């Protein structure tokens, strides 16, 4: 196992994953367009996936990578759902501004 990233410690990968996750969170909280917001959640998932792969590598087993496959599957399913939902919403209000959907409150 003599690959380029081999001599990088686990922490770097985890940190990368965490940063992507946090960026996803920040994006989720700050962007206005629903599609972007959804992409940010995808980013969070991918951040986690990076960590998973890193752990998998660290533990020298495949479980983590298997997990990533499933995570990707779920992400895909969510994406499909999200797009359907976005279409529905756009038809209803002709806007995808997240702030436009704040009628229910209290």
């Amino acid at each position, binding site marked *: 196992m003599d690959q380029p990233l081999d001599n990088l410690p686990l922490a770097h990968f985890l940190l990368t994953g965490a940063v992507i996750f946090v960026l996803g969170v920040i994006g989720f*909280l700050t962007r206005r367009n629903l599609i972007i*917001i959804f992409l940010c959640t995808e980013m969070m998932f991918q951040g986690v996936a990076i960590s998973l792969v890193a752990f998998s590598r660290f533990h020298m087993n495949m479980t983590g990578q298997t997990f990533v496959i499933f995570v990707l599957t779920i992400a895909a399913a969510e994406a499909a759902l999200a797009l359907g939902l976005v279409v529905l919403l756009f038809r209803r209000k002709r806007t995808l501004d*997240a702030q436009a*959907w*704040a*009628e229910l*409150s209290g």
Partner: protein
Amino acid sequence: MTLELETIKWIPWLPALAAVVGGVCCMRKSMRNLAAPACILSILAGFIITLGVQSKVTVDSPRVFKAFTWIHIENFAVDFSFYVDPLTIIMLTVITGVGTLVAWYASGYMKGDRGYARFFAAVSLFIFAMTILVMADNLFLLYLGWEGVGLCSYLLIGFYYNKPAAVAAAKKAFIVNRIGDLFFALGIFLTYSHFHTVSLAEVLRSAGDLNTNLHAGGQGVFDLGAAPSVVVIPFLLMLGAFGKSAQLPLYMWLPDAMEGPTPVSALIHAATMVTAGVYLIARLLPLFALSPYALPIVAAVGGATALFAATIALCQCDIKRIFAYSTISQLGYMFMGVGAVSTAGPTVSATGAIYHLFTHAFFKALLFLTAGSVMHSLAGQLDLRKMSGLSKKMPITSVLMLIGCLALAGFPFTSGFFSKDLILADVVEMGRSNSPFATLYSVLGIVGVATAFLTAFYTFRLWFRVFTGPEQYEMGSDGHGHEEEGHDAGKAGHEQAHAPKSGETASAAIAVEHHHEPHEVSFVLMNLPLIFLAIGALGAGLWESKFGWIHHGIETSSAFLGYIPKTASDAGEAHDIHFTMQLISGSIAIVGIALAAWFHWLNRPAGERVARAFSGLVKVLNNKYYVDELNDALIVRPLRTLADVLFVFDSLIIDGIVQLVGFLPRALGMSLRPSQQGELQGYGLGMAFGAAFVLIVVLWSLNLVAMH
């Protein structure tokens, strides 16, 4: 005639039965008149039984007749049982004797009243309660009678319930009595907690023993600090007695109680119920001896009340109120008498009080009933200033009242003379003894004499005002003793008596009635019982001084068994005092009567001049020292204000706090509401911060844990 002693236990139950009958009679108009005979006969039967058994009751035979167990829990047992000793018999004689006569009188007096049956039901109930009171074997049962008579007093004072004044007076009587009753009840509790029994016989025996020990201990008696809590008992009981017998702090209710029908005033508020306090102290004398201060205080309060009430009576114009104050005053005498029993050196003298109680019952009942006759014929007029010279219209009544007045004034050889004299003699004797309170008793002796003078004066002021002088009168506005509700069909009886013109409206009939002439009342129904009373008022004293019935009875009563009289080494001196006092009080009475005759019969303008000269004093006395006003301003109103304030406090503050606590969750919810503004990213922010917060706090705390 003698009866088995056993029969005495029927005495309370007969009136009780009569009360039930009376209650039933209330329901049916047709049965209304049955109530009176039932009542009279039941009381009469009690009287006969009392007389029948009295010879069987001796010093050795205080007997207890148990009817049934009343309250029994754990070792606290109270029986519904009767205790009979000579004192009981004396009291029963008064109650049933005077009771019969008053009821008899009332059967005429109340004729035609809508509440005729109700009246007699209540009177029967009263006799029941009163006999229970004097026959009670234990303090609890005594309390039952005590409150029972209070209730009847309430019901009868408020008999004319349409009159707000009557209702108010009834309420006042009950409440003031309740104040006394509370202390009485606490006294009972203390007695129980100390003696572990409330049975009279046992309490008296234990208290007697305790007294003996205390006396044996010598001066320790006066050491209040070392004394056990039992010394409080007499003070508690005393307050109860003051309430019932209208003594100084708690007397206000009695004058107002005159709102009731006159027979009620005679029976309950003069002859019987109000003397219950005297009876209580006489009965429980050994308990009162537990504290050396108790009896002197009783005597002092009695003396003060006697003088105080007598001064008020001087300037009153309402006949019944004069008699009411006179009753208070005479009750003061009795308390003086019963308080003049030395605890340091035992000599028996409570005789005077009971004796006076006995004679007073007769003459005061007589006075009230004759006043009732006057009222009856003047359509409820009671104001002295509005009547004069009635002796021609009402000769029998005037003579009867004269007899009563003489007895009250203590005119020599009337019954009042003997009994009052005995009390004064006792007090003076105490004043001359080596008692530590000798000075007090001396003062009381002077007070007693002064009061006797005032009594004579105001009594005859009344009599002369009413029956002498020019004949003039003004009819009353309403029927005291007549039903006010003119349009009610219940007037039948009276309408027959006065035969209104047929065809007139009912209210017209009243109008006519209000302007009829004064007239003598029915002889058989009303004057005949009065004559019996008059005989008692005149002769009781002479009879007693000849036979010594009461004296003997008291001496053989269980309360006094611990006080065997000294064999009268100083009997001679006592006799001297006695004679001296007779002389003084007799002459004082005559002077008082003479003065009254001068100012109110022979030279009325002179009387008015004197009154004008002392107009300030007269005004104060006329307004009863403004005690009612003071009472209202210092107690009733503040209390009522407190009630209102508390109500506001309750609904604002206490409920407010509850509401506030109830509002807290709501407030919390409102403060959290901004977190639910509906924006997707706002929620996301909340969630993200929540998760981050959890992580940071927990990891930070872990760090802390790790550092330790």
